[in-house]
């Protein structure tokens, strides 16, 4: 008969651990079923607009609290965002601590991001790690988007389309790291959409409002489509969209802008699939929540015999859970930081991080 027990801190062979994804950490051990009381990590995200903290284990998100920065006018002002984070970080950490869930490490978004925001979050993380006497873990924000997606969808070794405000990258694992195969040469697609939203007089963030307007659009207005190998450029397209807005309906311009920009993103994703020979595609980052972009990626994958994965909606935008989860797997691989070496890295690159778990 099966025997159920809790083993705290038990280390399973790598082959067993790797096979475990999803709800419970169940491992078959001869006739015995072992439920592991896995570790948990408290993670804090605060690279730009999002300020969010969470406690996460392998099985689920135990607690999460957030307080996003919403600019009164225009886009994100780095100092104002940092000031916002400084004012709200204590209450949101208090909220997750009040859940009563314990944790074995404190993770923070170390970069890339806005320097003042990163420093605010890092200061809080260091204080927490010292107060609770647990390891401090510095997490790369882009890697966290990938890992939370792998965790939530169960895909294994995907080509990742990572599309957020500042980032538009096609990433895939090769030789120990997530490599950037292609990226924007000028602005991130999210920032491009937000800027165009402001041009139309829409409130920040513009992306979801543009998506809604685009659904009503019918005729495609020709715009520059710039793909160079696996790299992209959006600036010419943005100028054309602003010009078109003077003479065409909002709906048609939004429709054309989305069709044009997303086709570029899907095309470079397909190139990366062909180049790497992989057969999974994962989408992540705030713009990834866009239904039209997801439908296009899904169509491309179906045509190529690849599988398309999208995490639940709440994991697209920047969130504390993705930092906590990535911190958790880093903790299990000994990737922790001494306080003295924990300076933030505003230009932290995806491929700066050695990935030992894939």
């Amino acid at each position: 008969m099966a025997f159920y027990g809790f083993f705290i801190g038990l280390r399973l062979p790598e082959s067993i651990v790797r096979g475990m994804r999803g709800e419970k950490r169940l491992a078959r051990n001869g006739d015995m079923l072992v439920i592991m009381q896995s570790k948990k990590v408290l993670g804090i995200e605060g690279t730009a607009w999002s300020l969010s903290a969470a406690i996460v284990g392998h099985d689920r998100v135990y607690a999460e609290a957030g307080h996003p920065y919403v600019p009164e006018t225009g886009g994100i002002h780095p100092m104002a965002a940092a000031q916002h984070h400084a004012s709200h970080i204590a209450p949101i950490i208090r909220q997750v601590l009040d859940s009563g869930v314990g944790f074995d490490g404190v993770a923070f978004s170390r970069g890339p991001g806005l320097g003042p925001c990163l420093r605010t979050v890092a200061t809080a993380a260091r204080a927490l790690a010292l107060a609770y006497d647990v390891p401090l873990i510095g997490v790369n924000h882009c890697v966290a988007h990938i890992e939370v997606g792998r965790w939530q969808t169960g895909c294994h070794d995907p080509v990742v389309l990572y599309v957020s405000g500042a980032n538009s990258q096609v990433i895939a694992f090769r030789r120990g790291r997530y490599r950037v195969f292609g990226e924007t040469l000028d602005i991130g697609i999210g920032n491009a959409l937000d800027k165009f939203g402001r041009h139309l007089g829409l409130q920040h963030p513009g992306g979801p409002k543009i998506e809604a307007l685009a659904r009503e659009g019918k005729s495609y207005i020709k715009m520059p489509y710039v793909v160079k190998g696996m790299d992209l450029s959006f600036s010419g397209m943005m100028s054309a969209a602003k010009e078109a807005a003077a003479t065409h309906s909002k709906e048609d311009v939004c429709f054309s802008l989305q069709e044009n920009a997303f086709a570029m993103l899907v095309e470079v994703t397909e190139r990366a699939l062909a180049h790497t020979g992989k057969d999974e595609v994962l989408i992540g980052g705030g713009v990834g929540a866009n239904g039209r972009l997801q439908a296009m990626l899904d169509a491309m994958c179906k045509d190529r015999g690849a599988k398309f994965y999208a995490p639940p909606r709440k994991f697209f935008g920047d969130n504390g859970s993705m930092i906590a989860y990535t911190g958790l797997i880093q903790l299990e691989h000994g990737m922790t930081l001494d306080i003295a070496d924990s300076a933030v890295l505003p230009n932290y690159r995806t491929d700066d991080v050695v990935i030992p778990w894939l």
Partner: protein
Amino acid sequence: MEKRGAEAVVELFPDRVIKTRVPKSYRIPELDERLRSERTRAEAKIISEARRAGIPTPIVYDVRQYALVMEFVDGRPMKEVITPELSRAVGVLVGRLHKAGLIHGDLTTSNMILRGDVIYMIDFGLSFWDGTLEARGVDVHVYYQTLISSHEDHEALMDAFAEGYRAAFPEAADDVLRRVKEIEYRGRYKTETP
């Protein structure tokens, strides 16, 4: 025989190849048709411009709406036969191409064919017009990466390439080759090098 890339299907016949850009269901038809026909015409134009600049390329027999009919260059891929001497000759060809304001965009040793003692460049599907240092640097960087990842004596091959490139494009070669080194040291590419 048929080869399927990310955007085109290439059918090989004894006397010609037909490269057809296939429709993509994820794009709206208007955009899809525009891109496929624009790119087909651009590729034909770049191939003939490269020929005029002194780079052996397949002869384009016919430009259809979404397809190019071209000469089948029956030889051995550079990947299998490369020597420092041939790499120097590749350097001369790339120097001429860049001097003409063109970027190949996919300079791998599979995209060069040796027929007799002539090196042909093929697959201009990712080519574009660009006279900037950065574009030229990335073009050469791609070639170097192929050498590093698949050829033992890549250092001699890279040196020979640089020699040929300098000979064909003396006015810009040093700046381009310096930029190639900078590109290698950038985070993005640094870790690509084994």
